[in-house]
């Protein structure tokens, strides 16, 4: 076989592994791990990498243990997991709509979360640490369901979904502005901060929902990645290859909405990650199949958020920049490069 592939066949089981994808995945995973350790090590109170590793292995002193396990590790893990969830969601949205410019931010799923969360922050007298994420979760899912229902016309066409999504996003933005005009300055300031997206002060209670969602959904998504590959050929071919197109697309979009919702609930809407991560993944291995693209996009998303968070903490220390600002600053020029390339070759992505 060409292209550096290894075929594994045992009885009824047969798999084909693209070595370059496996290599890229290993590199990204190593990068995420390194960034994670660095993120735990660096801070106002620096902890040598050796001590970080020792503490993670359960052999650190009490003070280090507190900083590592209670403060920095959950924050870093929230960055990794939310980045992975956004990367996966972006890859699914782009593949299922056959549009490389789509992301949950563009089609209003993050916007739905934003309206609900901001409304809770501004209007509720007791905006608890539980109410805001729950509102964000519900808002994103409601926006996703509304989007699908509005785009439905005996089936959901990729382009119509995007156009309706842009409408949903505009509506959500209007909702956010309305809420902002109704609030008092302290609550509005807090709402703004939430809207930027941050992992500051996130604890284990934020890690678990993300970890559980990914643990359940990620393997299922990668397993059904083949359907995305068939859908990538267009609805007609996918159907003639035996894919139940509408059902598969609904399932995939629903998973992407849930992934986005859970990520946004934990961190607020961190911009551009879901959009850029799949592009980075495709850069590493052009023409990669969905089964390779999905884990790669998850890894790129994770890497992007952890590194951005680290950069945000270091750039103007001791003042911290919320991670959402850094991802936007990093992603904007990349977006321009992408558009330049797209206008040169005639296609985006």
């Amino acid at each position, binding site marked *: 076989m*060409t292209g550096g592939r290894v075929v594994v066949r045992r009885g*009824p089981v047969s798999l084909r592994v693209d070595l370059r994808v496996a290599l890229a995945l290993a590199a990204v995973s190593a990068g995420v791990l390194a960034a994670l350790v660095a993120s735990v090590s660096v801070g106002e109170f620096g902890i040598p990498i050796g001590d970080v590793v020792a503490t993670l292995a359960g052999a650190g002193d009490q003070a280090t243990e507190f900083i590592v396990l209670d403060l920095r590790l959950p924050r870093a893990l929230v960055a990794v997991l939310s980045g992975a969830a956004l990367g996966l969601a972006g890859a699914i949205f782009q593949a299922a709509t056959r549009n490389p410019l789509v992301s949950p931010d563009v089609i209003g799923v993050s916007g739905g979360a934003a309206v609900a969360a901001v409304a809770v922050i501004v209007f509720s007298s007791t905006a608890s640490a539980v109410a805001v994420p729950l509102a964000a979760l519900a808002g994103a899912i409601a926006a996703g369901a509304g989007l699908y229902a509005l785009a439905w016309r005996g089936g959901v066409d990729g382009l119509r979904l995007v156009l309706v999504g842009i409408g949903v996003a505009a509506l959500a933005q209007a909702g956010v502005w309305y809420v902002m005009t109704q609030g008092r300055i302290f609550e509005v300031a807090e709402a703004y901060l939430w809207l930027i997206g941050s992992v500051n002060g996130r604890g284990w209670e934020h890690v678990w929902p993300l970890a559980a969602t990914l643990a359940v959904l990620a393997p299922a998504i990668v397993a059904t990645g083949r359907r995305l590959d068939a859908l990538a050929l267009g609805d*007609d*071919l996918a159907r003639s290859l*035996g894919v139940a197109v509408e059902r598969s697309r609904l399932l995939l979009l629903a998973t992407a909405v849930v992934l986005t919702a859970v990520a946004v609930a934990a961190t607020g809407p961190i911009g551009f990650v879901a959009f850029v991560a799949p592009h980075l993944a495709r850069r590493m291995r*052009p023409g990669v199949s969905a089964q390779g693209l999905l884990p790669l996009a998850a890894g790129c998303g994770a890497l992007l958020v952890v590194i951005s968070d680290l950069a945000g903490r270091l750039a103007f220390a001791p003042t911290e920049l919320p991670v959402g600002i850094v991802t936007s600053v990093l992603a904007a020029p990349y977006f321009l490069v992408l558009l330049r390339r797209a206008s040169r070759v005639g296609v985006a992505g």
Partner: protein
Amino acid sequence: MSASPLQARELTVGYDGRVVVDGLSLEIPRGLITVVVGANGCGKSTLLRALARLLKPRAGAVLLDGREIDRLPSKEVAKRLGLLPQSPSAPDGMTVEDLVARGRYPHQGLFRQWSERDEAAVEAALAATETTELRARPIDELSGGQRQRVWIAMTLAQETELLLLDEPTTFLDLAHQIDVLELLDGLVAERGRTVVMVLHDINQACRYADHLVAMCGGRIHAAGPPADVVDAAFIRDVFGLEAEVIEDPVTGTPLCLPTTTSRRTTTRC
């Protein structure tokens, strides 16, 4: 098992409020090439899409080996019937080999992703379409003719008895058109496949069709071997064109030579 692998029974299909195929019955003969011809908007592509169960009938049914196609599991249908739509597009950067391998989808599962049979089918499809040397090239770098051969290879890798193609020669130059048609002709002759395709060129249709189906206003105007159905009256009725029909000096099939150059007469449909 009925003699015809694919049949339409009183089939009515339409989009939104409009009926495009109207109570049409048709039997596709096994192991032959059936070509569907007709003027623009006569419903030929719609018929092909309905036969490939891409469109749900409003009334009537499509029967695959005598059983209603909409009641069969979609993967089962995909193992027996392949379709090449009019202008398919592949994701950016995808290689020839990867695209052809996608044709194996209905034969694969979660744990059976690349069996020896998958590999053999892809190799055979590449060889049959003479695209083996192109295997590592990205699709977007190929010429139109090469690309069409690769798409046909993908549907061949699907290993279906029936192959439906919607205007497989559009956008190709004459040499590549003949290439594609010869390839399909060989598949039928050597491998016993059944091919159904929509063609625009009536002379090519006459050359390659064993069974010609002419459509007119969503119904079948005439069907049968080209030599039996194509004459001047046929061309006038189906295409609204005055023409002389002679015997093709190369193949002996009907050859249509339009006589009017400026004014079209009105079609009967």
